[in-house]
């Protein structure tokens, strides 16, 4: 309004009114975030870290570096989503017969942002980050199939996260819940830019996720070390394969569905509107045709993490490896056949509801088999309760309960009473926190020494685990109870005294979670400060079984000086066993120069223009949309016309790096105590 007309026209819908000057909470929150970001950037620039950061991280196409950046993004967004959770729990604790401190129009944004951020920008990056880091190492190869595409995927995901967070300061976020059901999300009922922020953030990051899917399916199917047949792949690779197949199959559905909603909102189409033949049920069908597989996209890699951690810390191979693979494939397939259980209450009738109810409970067969296989992996083992194993135990017990409440919700008459209640909310937090989040922390602790060369501090890690476990139960058991008492989700205020004690108890749970967060931060700080005493010299800190432990910690850019020749399941276990038996490493190989992909800023620059385009689309700044798209395309052309795509690491360099690793291994071999190890440890997986 106070902007001169000409400039005002240039900025589309964007005016100074978009900044919530009248709402102190988002304004202060946004201000603090901006200050922190500016401070971090200033520190980087002033200390002269920028060239290093640009060269080694931002433009890196190394799958390990990209994996680390994904995990970092996931952790930062986890923090943001957690702050939303604190706001929701505290609002409900205060809003009994009262307005609380968040008015509906703000509270509605908070829970919408919480769900969106936690699923798309915390859980997904954490899982994709672990896959990025681990899968090529486990397959015994040097990188993913399309390294530059991998970098582009990451930066497009970061674009989505950035757009969602920009909405905190400029404009608003969606007030529709994390899945914007029409007609509420149509322009008529949500005229603001909130839903547009949601849609464009997800469209852009969705492209990144789809590209990740393509990349990893190709990598796992086509690029494996010699001898690494499908049935010799670690289970984490199998779950990664299935998760990425699900991405490739499901994410286009999401993109198409959101595109239809965009057409409705921007160009007056009538896919899901009330009038002119639109049908909102179609959106709900389509969004869950993506949404249910999405659950398994998150949880399958999590199952993979536990399938690595539990054998390692039980000192035994995974029990029933083939059964595990079959169960994974089974879940992958059936996950596409159950989406209707998200709307049993839309009145589809007995036949349809019963069919999908039974299909849903059948998934529990695959999951049940997995639980039993992990259980029998522990049977006859020598279990070391290090932090990753604690997370796994917490998962096994808690996830079993979550699975039970999930099957309960798959029984239509029970769902008729519990749908959309806080019982449902407790259920999916039960499976996502115990499944995905616990897996992320188990995996993080487990592979951290591989990535950085030193272990995380055990004491603080264990404290974080126990606080998380307690926090989970104290928060969500009351939510189960209050759901049974009829409390529905997304209430900004309520008047029923019956619910109050449970809501307050859940509020206490979130305080316990805050202690867990504090422990995580302290763990990181303490571990970095004491990194010398926590250093992993051998590259095998946990007595591991798969190939990632055969290389140094951190691994060289090329991962393996010579690609391993795989002769059975658990290849590294056999290499280690032979080395101990013969008291020597295999003969030094003939080192060859290695070609590695060159770093490229393509991903970063493309994502920069994607951010510009997305922002311009949200605010109807059409000239900027044109500029953004043209520049993004130009970056692609510039990349496609490159002359040199690889650089060579000379043989001497490879030899120097690998000899250092061999030296550390030889020193380890020379220490005492391996005879006992040899007699007491089994043969490992069947060769």
């Amino acid at each position, binding site marked *: 309004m106070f902007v001169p007309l000409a400039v005002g026209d240039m900025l589309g819908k964007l005016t100074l009114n978009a900044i919530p000057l009248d709402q102190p909470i988002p304004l202060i929150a946004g201000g603090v975030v901006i200050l922190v970001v500016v401070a971090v950037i200033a520190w980087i620039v002033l200390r002269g870290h920028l060239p290093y950061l640009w060269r080694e991280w931002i433009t890196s196409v190394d799958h390990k570096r990209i994996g680390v950046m994904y995990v970092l993004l996931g952790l930062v967004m986890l923090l943001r989503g957690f702050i939303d959770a604190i706001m929701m729990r505290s609002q409900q604790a205060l809003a009994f017969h009262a307005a609380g401190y968040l008015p509906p129009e703000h509270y509605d944004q908070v829970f919408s942002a919480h769900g969106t951020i936690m699923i798309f920008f915390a859980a997904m990056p954490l899982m994709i980050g672990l896959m990025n880091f681990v899968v090529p190492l486990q397959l015994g190869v040097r990188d993913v199939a399309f390294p530059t595409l991998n970098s582009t995927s990451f930066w497009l995901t970061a674009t989505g996260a950035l757009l969602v967070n920009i909405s905190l300061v400029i404009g608003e976020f969606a007030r529709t819940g994390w899945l914007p059901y029409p*007609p509420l999300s149509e322009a008529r009922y949500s005229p603001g830019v909130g839903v547009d922020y949601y849609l464009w953030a997800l469209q852009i990051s969705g492209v990144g996720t789809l590209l990740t899917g393509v990349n990893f399916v190709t990598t796992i199917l086509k690029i494996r070390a010699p001898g690494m047949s499908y049935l010799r792949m670690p289970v984490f690779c199998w779950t990664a394969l299935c998760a990425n197949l699900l991405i490739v199959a499901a994410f286009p559905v999401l993109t198409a569905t959101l595109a239809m909603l965009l057409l409705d909102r921007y160009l007056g189409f009538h896919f899901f509107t*009330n009038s002119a033949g639109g049908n909102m049920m179609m959106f709900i069908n389509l969004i869950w045709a993506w949404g249910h597989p999405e659950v398994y996209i998150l949880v399958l890699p999590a199952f993979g993490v536990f399938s690595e951690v539990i054998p390692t810390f039980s000192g035994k*191979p995974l029990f029933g490896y083939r059964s595990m693979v079959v169960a994974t494939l089974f879940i992958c397939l059936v996950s596409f056949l159950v989406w209707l259980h998200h709307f049993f*209450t839309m009145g589809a009738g007995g036949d349809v509801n019963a069919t999908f109810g039974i299909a849903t409970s059948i998934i529990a067969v695959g999951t049940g*088999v997995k639980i039993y*296989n992990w259980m*029998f992996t522990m049977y006859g*083992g020598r279990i070391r309760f290090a932090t990753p194993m604690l997370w796994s135990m917490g998962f096994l017990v808690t996830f079993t309960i979550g699975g039970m409440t999930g099957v309960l919700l798959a029984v239509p008459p029970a769902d008729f*009473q519990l749908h959309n209640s806080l019982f449902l909310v407790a259920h999916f937090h039960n499976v996502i926190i115990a499944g995905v989040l616990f897996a992320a922390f188990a995996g993080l602790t487990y592979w951290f020494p591989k990535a950085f060369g030193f272990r995380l501090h055990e004491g603080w890690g264990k404290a974080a685990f126990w606080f998380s476990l307690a926090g989970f139960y104290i928060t969500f058991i009351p939510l189960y109870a209050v759901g049974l008492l009829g409390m529905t989700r997304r209430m900004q205020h309520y008047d029923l005294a019956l619910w109050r004690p449970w809501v307050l108890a859940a509020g206490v749970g979130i305080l316990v979670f805050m202690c867990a967060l504090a422990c995580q931060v302290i763990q990181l700080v303490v571990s970095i400060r004491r990194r010398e005493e926590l250093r992993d010299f051998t590259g095998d800190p946990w007595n591991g079984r798969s190939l990632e432990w055969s290389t140094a910690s951190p691994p060289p850019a090329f991962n393996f000086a010579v690609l391993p020749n795989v002769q059975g399941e658990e290849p590294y276990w056999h290499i280690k066993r032979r080395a101990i038996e013969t008291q020597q490493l295999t003969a030094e190989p003939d080192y060859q120069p290695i070609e590695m992909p060159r770093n490229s800023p393509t991903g970063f620059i493309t994502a920069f223009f994607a951010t510009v385009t997305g922002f311009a689309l949200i605010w109807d700044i059409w000239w900027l949309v044109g500029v953004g798209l043209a520049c993004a395309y130009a970056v692609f052309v510039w990349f496609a016309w490159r002359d040199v795509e690889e650089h060579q690491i000379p043989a001497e360099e490879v030899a120097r790096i690998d000899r250092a690793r061999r030296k550390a291994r030889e020193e380890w071999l020379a220490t005492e105590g391996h005879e006992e190890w040899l007699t007491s440890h089994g043969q490992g997986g069947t060769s």
Partner: protein
Amino acid sequence: MAAYARGLSAVRPSRYLPVSARIAAALATASLAGCSGGVLQPRGPIGAADSQILLDAVGIMSAIVVPTIAALFIFAWWFRASNPRARYQPDFVYSGRLEIIIWSIPILVIMFLGGVIWIGSHELDPYRPISADEPPLEVQVVSLDWKWLFIYPQQRIASVNELVIPVGTPVHFELTSASVMNAFFVPQLGSMIATMNGMKTQLNLTADHPGDYYGESTQYSGDGFSGMHFVVHAVAKDEFPRWVSTVQQDGPALDRNGYFDLLQQTQNARPFTYRSVDPSLFQAILTHQLPPGPGPYVGGAGPNVRPVGGR
């Protein structure tokens, strides 16, 4: 739970008391925010059957879940590295017999549960009429931004955010939405059902105890969602006609014009009644003869909600 217990004690004895005492008891319950318990304290046959299935399913699954969790703890504890008495069997990685058991247990449980699901889904399909000696009471439900409109087509009256039903008589609901999606739910009476614009859903419920029951929307529908709850007064059969005649004597009439006022977005609407109602109103909303709700007021540029040639 204390409030629930008090609510109960206020409701239960009322079955055996004279009318005046019953009304006093009803008022007492109403003062306790009008509400009582959750889905596990059903006050009608549908709610009772729903929650029975819920408990049965928990029972069936507990039969394997509880031993499984126990075994997880036992295995983890016994096979801890520091226990010298545990036998280390690093080559125990496959057992055909065990695999068969591992796959069979969940399959058998799910087959059993599948039967429960199939029968339950059909028996408790919300559209299925409740068998009774008397014809059901018809109620047409319209979810608006952000309140509930209940139309009694047989009695030609209507109410907002307040539903009065006779105890023991089945109620047949026909539901639609005037704007965005919502869901109609009375936890103590049983099954919920979605309300959607341009579509009609159905629900059959019975209350078998007099009392006041909390009802709500269970599908988030925008800023006023949290205030979109209502009270169900389940009253004695002979009391219901008296309530109807009281309503018929007083209050505004609901014609199409009055409906447009109702269609505007309002929050936390207090309950009130209409002495008469246009009998074709529900059908007109359902078939878009009356346009959907206008949504939020956007600086005067919003769509004109009055139909062309209205009034």
